[in-house]
């Protein structure tokens, strides 16, 4: 093992240890605050109470059930949002006219706060999974769209000329030049999309649902079970972080050929 790898390994170990340490300190302060100020559980539950509720929800399968429901909405929304945004993004990147025509609508669609239209979407599409997937897809749509257009447009013109001089077909242009060249920016958009889609799904669930982590949070509020609200929120955080990390990993793998 050469000197550089050894230092890398040490760095990672040190980073991991410091993360654990700061987490532990945070939990100690939280538990201490609750005990010192004698806060009632329904205002701020202690970490021990949250952990106990977390274990109970895990044990009876309800946490898995509701997490799976939210995850399904998130993944479906992410997939449909990304697919639609990429398709439209490709069309917009190719046609400046189309971009000019659609620009005002697209910007307007982004300007509408998701939280405000979620109730409308739930009224129109019901409280089932479709409204959540739609809200998710809408939340993810614009960032991915913008990144697609920017990424595709940023392909160096001289490389395009090269492909054209070799009589590349449109598909070859797309597959061999545009996609690989735009990939870093596209994946950046996917990173944003992954975390936003979790927000979209939960907003939909908070408005109207009978399953999912947002629903669980509502239930906790209604029964003054604030520990359950914490469990829901923390599970959502884990979900979002996991998705984000997955995209990071994907980025590392797909962009290995890029010499940095």
């Amino acid at each position, binding site marked *: 093992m050469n000197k550089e790898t050894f230092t890398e390994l040490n760095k990672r170990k040190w980073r991991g240890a410091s993360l654990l340490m700061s987490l532990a300190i945070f939990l100690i302060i939280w538990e201490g605050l609750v005990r010192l100020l004698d806060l009632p559980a329904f205002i701020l539950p202690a970490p021990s109470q949250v952990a106990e509720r977390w274990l109970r929800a895990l044990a009876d399968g309800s946490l898995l059930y509701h997490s799976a429901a939210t995850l399904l909405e998130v993944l479906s929304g992410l997939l449909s949002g990304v697919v639609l945004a990429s398709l439209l993004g490709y069309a917009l990147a190719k046609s400046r006219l189309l971009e000019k025509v659609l620009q005002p609508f697209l910007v307007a669609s982004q300007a509408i706060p998701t939280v405000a239209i979620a109730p409308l979407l739930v009224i129109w599409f019901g409280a089932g999974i479709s409204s959540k997937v739609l809200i998710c897809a809408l939340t993810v749509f614009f960032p991915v769209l913008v990144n697609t257009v920017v990424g595709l447009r940023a392909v160096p013109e001289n490389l395009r000329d090269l492909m054209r001089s070799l009589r590349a077909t449109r598909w070859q242009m797309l597959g061999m030049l545009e996609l690989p060249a735009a990939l870093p920016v596209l994946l950046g958009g996917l990173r944003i999309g992954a975390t936003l889609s979790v927000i979209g799904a939960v907003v939909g669930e908070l408005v109207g*649902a009978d399953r999912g982590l947002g629903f669980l949070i509502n239930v906790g509020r209604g029964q003054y079970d604030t520990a359950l609200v914490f469990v829901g929120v923390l599970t959502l955080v884990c979900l979002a972080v996991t998705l984000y990390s997955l995209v990071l990993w994907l980025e590392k793998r797909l962009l290995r050929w890029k010499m940095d």
Partner: protein
Amino acid sequence: MKTYWKNAVLLLLAGIGLNACAAKPSNSIRLPVGYIPNVQFAPLYMAIEKGFYREEGLEVEMDYNMETDSVALVGAGELQFAVVSGEQVLLGRAQGLPVVYVMAWYRDYPVGVAAKKEAGIRAPEDLRGKRIGIPGLYGASYIGLKALLNAGGLEEKDVHLDSIGYTQVESLADGLDEAVVIYVSNEPIKLRAEGYEVDVMVVSDHLSLVGNGLITNGNMLQEQPETVRAMLRATSKGIAYAASHPEEAFEICFKYVENLKNLTEEEQEVQRQVLKASIGMWQLQPVGYSDGQAWQNMQDLLLQMGLLEQALDLEVAFSNAYLPQE
């Protein structure tokens, strides 16, 4: 390229078509209740669990969507029944929606105002100049508060209103508000369980108003009166049975109310008390009977608040004719 787009469009149409094919049989009823699963819906859970609906040939599915515009959907014929508070019926009818209130579930309007004992707010007059937390300036809480202010000879400008969403318990506990508008069977129980001594002023002590009940539309009454009667028979049976068997009702709630079985002993006891307090407010003698005077009071209040512009024909807004005969 052309075939690609053709296929995409076909797939999309197929998807829409499949969705439309999921039409429901007419005895399958989706019932919006306007809130998440809760022990207050015990009669409905009872009626589902013990087969009261099934005996009548009905299949009832609970809709917990808080944003369902129940009155609009029932009025438009999209839904057959819904559980709503009485004022929604008058407000809907004023918009031309042909909704009819066919069964009174609650006898007492469930709204009240709670305050810590030390604040000394025992009668409506005591609200003068006080900070009052209210979920929002709409809905049953707003109407209930107005009724109480009237009873104390006060106007809205004589008090300070805080829109606080559903954080009444925390607001009162932390002293952010001196009084909070609550549901009599809910927040006060939690407050007392947390060790706070509270005074609760109940709207129904001062004015009889129309609380939660079952609505349907004019079309149902014309074309499917038997379905309406069946629905009311089964639902009133559920209400009566839950009222006379509160322990069994609570047990059944474990199956239908998410997380109820995961609560601590104290938290479950709070929910037990919530059910008990709710039962105390139901219309039981006879079950489902609507009181004409309460409707008149409700209309007068809405007119005074400017929520109704003109008086409606109350005779057609509600009906006792479809209730099970004793």
